[in-house]
């Protein structure tokens, strides 16, 4: 039987459209890619980043992965640009700890800005070395050589030429790079070669097509859920009704009628395995368990925000020049003619990935253990699996295969650890997939929070003091780095202690006020271990909610001082690139100045328009949202979004535009629908009925994207920046339409009607 392993990897690598390739296992794939003779991965070796095959194509080894935004194509373009190769002759082998260094996986929108830049530098060095080799080979000075499509030729004697493939094809570069000593997102290399001058760009700014699209649409590509290994068993977890309860007795006879079904039970970790997947599901449902008498751990949902307000902080922090001199902040507010204050509340939200997470682990204590995972961080997930199995990191190969969505630390990190525990317990390869209620109900959540913003205004209407304060659950109660089993639900269930990070964040923008103070407090989780409300990163971690509060309040202050929101922003935002996106978006929509809600109405429908802006690691985004509010039902429709986007140099405008469209639409979903519901015992948002997301009938009718291309500025990363200001722009548009200032999300009909009443 063939192992249908990593077929998608091959399809992606070769850019095949409809070819169905079935490779018999990892070793055959290695042979195809010429990896069997490869020197060991070493961050100081150029060969760890790039190779040239005999046909002259290049392979870049990318220790991150692409979740469908086209990151790998961006990387291919960066490498092709430096190598002077057509992009179709650059393959990106990604997300496999067996073929690439630990570049941190997908994380913080650094795929292009960090990971891609490293491979770009390696490509430039490879080109430099090959030009030197060609100079020797052809007997001409390097300065006389030009490269076109992987052919190096003499300018003075064009007949003298040699190809990359002829020079080094099939052999590995034996050359060093200057490594900065870091792994993960921070891994960077310097080389002797200079990267290309932007004026010579040929591949940047073009829009070659993604390689994973056709296999996904034709049904020929593998997802992690499709991985099959000979002898593999299917596993399901059995979770308690009351969060925090653990099994005290398990009735084996309750599943003995199910062929091959077995129980795996270690401390609070309880699950079943069976040779057939449906039998595993049946056994999970049939298993009779007596659970410990756990106390219901949560307050009533209606008391969530008072719980946050009243809870004692476990950690405080902040940003700005006044952190050590809070008395100066207090003095500034005392000197104000008027103080405005508002409080904003945001619920727990879920990644709610399209399918519940899945992982396959083949535990081989005396050989190589393999993890197939949909996790964003296959290297780190591999370390976590090694730790839970008592193996060394190098004994586990973590291979990323596309999973059902991601968007941060979703349940994929839990599935990897669960599959490992199962595989070790039964001594066979195990495929674990969660059920829907686990994916939404038990997956990590973005933390619920309360944000209080105050502005001190002087008698001339000038802002003299500004204080932004957040109080929240931990942004990383489980770390998004998956290297430690205690950062996963199954790890916690087998007794790995949680290690909360107790960190939060502050707004990101360049407003200047005489006193600007930003502080936060993190509170303890409501259930320390094994909690369905354990908090972690969700796409643009904290971004939508912090900037909902900040940018809503900017509008409040603008109107309180009788100023137009665009004019107010342009007057206080100090960075020129930031001002440019605000200007670009307001010009694009032909913004009409206003100093209050305009409340435009046609019958029962109110129309409004709102602006918001924010920055993220150098990327700046301003957006204008246009909404309709049904004044009878309270339903909000986000009809049109105009986005001005500056992420430095634009590598692939088409993929960037579609990334922005996805972010806008997902943020709209977060804004109007998403709120994790719970009762005192457990999370009750467990499926698409109890955790609704955007429907096609609610999609934006228009998303108008203005890309500002800064050719001379390195790419800043675009994966998440446009998530950030959308919720705020919606809130400001709803105010413009109705005069109702919503300070608690999501903006459901109930909240709108309550505001209108």
């Amino acid at each position, binding site marked *: 039987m063939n192992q249908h392993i990593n077929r998608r990897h091959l399809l992606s690598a070769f850019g095949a459209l409809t070819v169905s390739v079935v490779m018999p296992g990892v070793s055959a794939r290695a042979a195809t890619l010429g990896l069997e003779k490869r020197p060991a991965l070493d961050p100081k070796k150029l060969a760890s980043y790039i190779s040239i095959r005999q046909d002259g194509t290049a392979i870049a080894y990318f220790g991150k992965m692409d979740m469908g935004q086209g990151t790998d194509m961006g990387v291919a373009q960066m490498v092709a640009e430096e190598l002077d190769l057509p992009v179709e002759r650059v393959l990106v082998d990604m997300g496999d700890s067996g073929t690439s260094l630990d570049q941190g996986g997908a994380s913080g929108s650094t795929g292009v800005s960090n990971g891609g830049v490293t491979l770009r530098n390696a490509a430039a060095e490879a080109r430099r070395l090959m030009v030197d080799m060609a100079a020797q080979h052809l007997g001409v000075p390097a300065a006389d050589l030009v490269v076109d499509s992987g052919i190096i030729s003499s300018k003075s004697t064009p007949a003298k030429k040699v190809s990359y493939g002829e020079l080094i094809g099939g052999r590995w570069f034996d050359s060093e790079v200057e490594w900065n000593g870091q792994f993960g997102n921070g891994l960077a290399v310097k080389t002797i070669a200079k990267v290309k001058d932007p004026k010579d760009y040929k591949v940047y700014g073009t829009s070659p097509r993604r390689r994973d699209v056709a296999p996904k649409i*034709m*049904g020929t590509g593998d*997802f992690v859920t*499709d991985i099959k290994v000979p002898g593999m068993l299917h596993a399901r977890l059995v979770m308690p009704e009351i969060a925090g309860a653990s099994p005290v007795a398990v009735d084996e006879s309750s599943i003995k009628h199910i062929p091959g079904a077995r129980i795996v039970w270690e401390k609070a970790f309880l699950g079943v395995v069976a040779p*057939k997947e*449906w039998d595993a599901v049946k056994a999970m449902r049939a298993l009779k368990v007596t659970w410990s008498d756990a106390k219901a751990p949560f307050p009533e949902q209606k008391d969530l925000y008072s719980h946050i307000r009243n809870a004692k902080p476990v950690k405080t922090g902040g940003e700005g020049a006044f952190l050590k001199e809070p008395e100066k902040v207090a003095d500034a507010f005392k000197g104000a003619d008027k103080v405005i204050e508002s409080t904003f509340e945001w619920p727990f939200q879920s990644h709610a990935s*399209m399918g519940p997470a899945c992982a396959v682990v083949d535990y081989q204590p005396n050989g190589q253990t393999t993890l197939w995972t949909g996790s964003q961080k296959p290297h780190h997930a591999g370390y976590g699996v090694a730790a839970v199995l008592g193996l060394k990191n190098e004994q586990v190969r973590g291979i990323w295969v*596309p*999973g059902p969505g991601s968007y941060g630390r979703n349940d994929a990190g839990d599935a990897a650890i669960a599959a490992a525990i199962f595989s070790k317990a039964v001594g066979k390869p195990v495929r674990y997939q969660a059920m*829907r209620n686990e994916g939404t109900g038990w997956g990590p959540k973005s933390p619920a929070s309360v944000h209080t913003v105050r502005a001190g205004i002087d008698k001339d209407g000038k802002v003299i003091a500004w204080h932004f304060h957040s109080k929240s659950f931990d942004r990383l109660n489980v770390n998004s780095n998956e290297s430690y089993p205690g950062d996963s639900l199954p790890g916690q269930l087998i007794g790995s202690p949680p290690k909360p990070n107790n960190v939060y964040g502050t707004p990101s923008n360049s407003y200047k006020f005489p006193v600007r103070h930003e502080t936060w407090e993190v509170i303890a989780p409501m259930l320390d271990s094994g909690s369905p409300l354990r908090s972690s990163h969700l796409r643009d971690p904290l971004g939508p909610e912090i900037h909902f509060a900040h940018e809503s309040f900017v509008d409040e202050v603008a109107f309180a001082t009788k100023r137009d929101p665009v004019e107010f922003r342009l007057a206080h935002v100090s960075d020129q690139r930031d001002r440019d996106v605000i200007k670009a978006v307001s010009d694009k929509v032909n913004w009409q100045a206003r100093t209050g809600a305009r409340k435009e109405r046609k019958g029962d429908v109110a129309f409004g328009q709102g602006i918001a802006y924010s920055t993220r690691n150098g990327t700046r985004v301003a957006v204008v949202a246009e909404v309709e509010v049904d004044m009878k039902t309270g339903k909000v429709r986000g009809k049109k979004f105009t986005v001005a986007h500056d992420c430095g140099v634009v590598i692939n405008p088409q993929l960037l535009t579609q990334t922005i469209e996805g972010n806008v639409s997902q943020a709209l979903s977060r804004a109007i629908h998403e709120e994790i519901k719970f009762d005192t015992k457990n999370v009750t948002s467990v499926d698409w009925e109890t955790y609704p997301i955007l429907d096609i009938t609610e999609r934006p009718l228009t998303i108008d994207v203005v890309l500002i291309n800064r050719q001379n500025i390195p790419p800043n990363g675009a994966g998440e920046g446009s998530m950030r200001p959308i919720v705020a722009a919606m809130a400001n548009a709803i105010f413009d339409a109705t005069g109702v200032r919503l300070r608690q999300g999501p903006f459901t009909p109930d909240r709108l009607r309550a505001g209108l009443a």
Partner: protein
Amino acid sequence: MAKIELNVDGKSHTIDADNDMPLLYALRDDLGLKNPKFGCGLAQCGACTVLVDGQPVRSCVTPVDSLGKSKITTLAGLSQNGVPHKVQAAFIEEQVPQCGYCMNGWVMTTVSLLATTPKPTDAQIEEAMTGLKCRCATHVSIMRAVKRAAQA
């Protein structure tokens, strides 16, 4: 357990299964097909959609013994000799998917819609598609692709 015959993508298969096992598990686990996905098991998302005699059906809640002699078509069964169905061609042309896990539902539902309504209005597209989920939120690309397919 019963012997159950299934006609999938033009081929006949016989499997041993519980009568009430959902069709999805037969397709994925017994027949080794990958295109229908497990998204929710509750008929709430569409990731498991197959066509049964041309009609989109949620295979995660369809008992495997309820199919009779019906012809089941999966996503991979739409293409002929590797040539994409026009709906697939349109979804590829528009570069619709991000993670792609939901695409099965959207493509299959579009195929069924265009079979009965070759030139659908926006409202007809929405009516056919409402309830399908796409967590990456590629809805605007999906609409472009459906319209492109309708013009093909």
